[in-house]
């Protein structure tokens, strides 16, 4: 893999990037924000952190076998999505609490 980011060692930069993102994450909880904003911040920070660990520390980018291993790593995503979607569907309010565009009748059907 490429061993530099912005001219610095990739692992070193990745570690500091993760540290800074974690500090922001913790700091965001201390600020008096609405729950949805906090959730957005946590997800917004969690995704890049996830990608940084998987991509750089786990070598899913840059190595000669990265592509096939990334596909391998993504394989369970299908099952994870099915699991999460079906959990959503088993929610007691699933049929009534969905946005109107997701409900039968919205498109005149």
């Amino acid at each position: 893999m490429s061993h530099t980011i912005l001219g610095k060692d990739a692992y070193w930069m990745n570690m500091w990037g993760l540290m800074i993102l974690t500090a922001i994450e913790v700091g965001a909880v201390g600020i008096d924000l609405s729950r949805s904003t906090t959730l957005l911040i946590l997800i917004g920070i969690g995704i890049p952190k996830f990608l940084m660990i998987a991509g750089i520390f786990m070598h899913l980018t840059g190595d000669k076998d990265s592509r096939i291993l990334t596909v391998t790593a993504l394989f369970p995503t299908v099952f994870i999505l099915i699991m999460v979607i079906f959990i959503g569907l088993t929610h007691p309010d699933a049929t009534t609490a969905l946005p109107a565009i997701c409900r039968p009748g919205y498109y005149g059907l």
Partner: protein
Amino acid sequence: MSIGFGAFLFSFANLFVFGDIADTSDITGALLGICVGFVFIGIGLSIWWRQDLSFDGSYEPKAVGAPFKNIDIRKVAMWVFLWSEMMIFSSLFSTYIRYRVGLPKCENLYNDLVASGELVSGTAYTCYEPASQLIAASWWHLAPGAINTFALILSSFTVVQALRYAKMPDLDEEVRRKKIYRYLACTTMLACLFLTLKMVEWFIGFNVFGHEIPSLVSEGYTIHAANYQPHWAHGGDFMANIRVSASIFFVTTGTHGIHVLAGVIGLLYLTLKAYRGGFNPDNAVTIEYFGLYWHFVDLVWVLVFPFFYLF
């Protein structure tokens, strides 16, 4: 080793009867099963390590068929193992999402009951009380979890550094040996710090600079808390049955903790091997494969921390 884990887990579960340890007369079989499980795990580990200890990198089998052609078989196997791990944690996260969304949040329920005048004293209401209500209530409460997050990130860095020096060609062998075992020893210490802080957070609590921070258990946040009195209710009549939310928290973070513990066992072995000068560029893949596992543990924590500790 799988048989050992199976025997151990099945027997360990039989030690308990919903939150309590079963009668001593009933646990003999369970204790025996636990011992058998440990013996099988020990045999499996010793065979595994005996093979690896003498591994000099001269024969690393490669996959011959598509799609993994020419990739080390052990590397592919490690990724397949990580699939199964992903499924385990996905099921735990799915459970979390299901109940977090499905059950009313205790604070909201309390406010609704007070507003409508329907709060009945002495009744325990089933609701979802996230551990973050306690943990994120103050910086001191949050400190162990936050330090643990930094520790895991740092440990991921120390593992890749160990791998880097193990793979580095043209490096003096003594320098290589010292670099690798020191980085691995750092990783081990960080992992131990993680587990220690986890115990402090769950069971012990702490007192620093006049701030007395009780543990989750002493706050009453336990898996059999049927009459939990949330601190935000300010000593009112409200009681909550939080068995579901506490169980999800302890099972998920506990499963992650078990993975850290397994990592510590692996790290102790790797550190010992490194101390004996057992790694060189040809057999550094052992650190690489362990590193994949360790980064995965870090990856899971990246999701556990915000959703179980902060939100």
